[in-house]
């Protein structure tokens, strides 16, 4: 780590030089790539895709119903996020954790769509037992790509890899 000093006028001049290099200083550098790079990003899901994911998660072994499942599109500075509650009749906390783990994994493996931060809760409405991300060992209740990638890997067909 270093202690940074104020940017100097000299630095500003050097930045200008780098800028000229970037812009070609009107040299006529075309810079247009005729072959667009392949799609490398997850896209925002359509309502149909959200419904499809919800139905997929409802089939997880032990899940009785999915009473809540909402997706919020991101804005500038705020990424998308998804909240979901899963009801189960399982009584053992470990069984609820297994369901939660599966729900996170399946969502992350939908590598075509960007669900953003996931706030998933698995509960047994009868006993009142519920588990969330903290029960999987995370120190926060919402987990996103930064936590999902190291836990579950890149997914079966994802192209969104850290450089």
């Amino acid at each position, binding site marked *: 780590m270093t202690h*940074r000093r*104020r940017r100097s006028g000299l630095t500003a001049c050097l930045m200008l030089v780098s800028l000229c290099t970037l*812009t070609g200083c009107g040299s006529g550098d075309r810079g247009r790539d005729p072959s667009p790079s392949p799609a490398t990003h997850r896209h925002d899901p359509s309502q149909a895709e959200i419904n499809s994911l919800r139905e997929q998660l409802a089939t997880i072994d032990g899940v009785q119903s999915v009473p809540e499942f909402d997706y919020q599109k991101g804005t*500038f500075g*705020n990424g998308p996020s998804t909240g979901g509650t899963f009801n189960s009749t399982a009584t053992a906390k470990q069984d609820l954790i297994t369901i939660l783990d599966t729900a996170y994994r399946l969502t992350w493996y939908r590598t075509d769509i960007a669900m953003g931060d996931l706030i998933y*809760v698995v509960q047994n409405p009868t006993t009142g037992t519920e588990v969330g991300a903290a029960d999987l060992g995370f120190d*926060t209740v*919402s987990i996103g790509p930064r936590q999902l990638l190291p836990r579950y890997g890149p997914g079966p067909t994802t192209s*969104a890899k850290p*450089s």
Partner: protein
Amino acid sequence: MASDSLDVSGGAGGVSAQYDDMISTAAGLEQIANGLTERQSVIEAMLRNGDLLESAVLAPVTAAQVTAQGAAATIGPNGLLVAAARMQASALTLRVSVDAYQSLDEALARATTAGQAVGAPLALLGLLGREGLRAGDDLWNGDLAGLRQLPGLAAEDAGKLLYANPWIVDGVITDSPALMWTLGFAAGPVGFGVLSAWTNSTEHAAFPPTSVEDATGDLIAFGAGFGVFKTGSAGVTPLGPAQAAPSARMAVPTSLSTTMDGVRELGRQKGTIRIFDVPQTDGTRRWVVEIPGTQEWSPTAGTNPVDLTTNLRLMAGQQTEQNEGIRQAMRLAGVAPGEPVMLAGHSQGGITAASLAADPATRAEFDITHVYTGGSPIARFPIPDDVNVLSIEHDQDAVPRLDGRDNPDRPGWVTIHRDPTGVLNQRGEPVTNTAQAHDNSVYSDTAALIDRSTDLTVMRQRETFQPFFSGTGDTTVTTYQLTRELP
């Protein structure tokens, strides 16, 4: 490749703190020198003592030896007088050095600002020229498809330009008053007069502007003439558990990263803030207020005060419905005078935090001791020295540069910079553009690095925040819905 390297400015290891240390050392040397001078007077008085002079008759050799030793101890080359003079000289050198360093710093800062102010328009003109050449080339070749691609490519180039040269934003902001003047002149003498009369008739605006705040105030005043950027009054409603959003669990602030996580989760319930009551083991209480970033970007002011109108008003140095709503929520939460409060926010949330901490009326009512921001342009807010500030700014994020200057370098204000290139954002994409660099999840990632940092300046600042994260473990939270009530 994501970088885990952090650049730290300000704080205990900052330049300002080092200057303070030099001044303190100079003062210490002067104090010792004064003490030595006083001792010299005592020895001189002893040498002139009547008994000693009388004893010289009986023991002239001994008296001479005493007198010689006394003289050596006072006015000799290693005597008190010389030592005191050397210390005074050292103290003076230190003070002069501090003055020289500070003058040099100020000169460099002025040169940087001037360089950016000149460079930014040149850079933008360069970009325009490049796109113009492209358009001309396409026209010459009859490439209409290429011409249609031009707006997208121009936007892409602008993004690349800003990502590689984020200082351009500083320059544009510095130039904003001049831009307003130019617009005024372009409107002609009559137009200039009309603009001036119109703008100056509105509250918080002055035309022609003399500062960035004035220029922003003018923009609001112009907008008001077209029905945008309207103001209203603040409304606050505490939300019970039944009104919470689905899966509305929340990260309890236990660290800088979980606090930023909590700020991010506020995005799931538009227009809300959260106030955490953190009981301490000694029976006292501390409070954490989490404030979200901009949620609505329409210039037309709506009922959600977390919007563009609030952004502009904050940057113009005005108090907002969001500020008033937070004050009302703090009253409802029971925040008492003297109980330490930490305000934490991302983007607009951080600006709001700084605005509240700098507002004398707010400070008279609440004891805001800590401000924690991510991606917020807060350098222009006069936050008092006794408030501990921790600001995170990503190098390629244009938003924290919208104040057009660096954060103050002072012992209680630590700014941490990071190049976030390659960090995964919430969409699972590695950061490659300025919008991604502003993503609050990427700020959480940087906050996690700060939580683990062993940099002494960071550790000392982090320690001051720690009581808000520990407490007795019985932290409680209330969510408040803030609204703008339009007339």
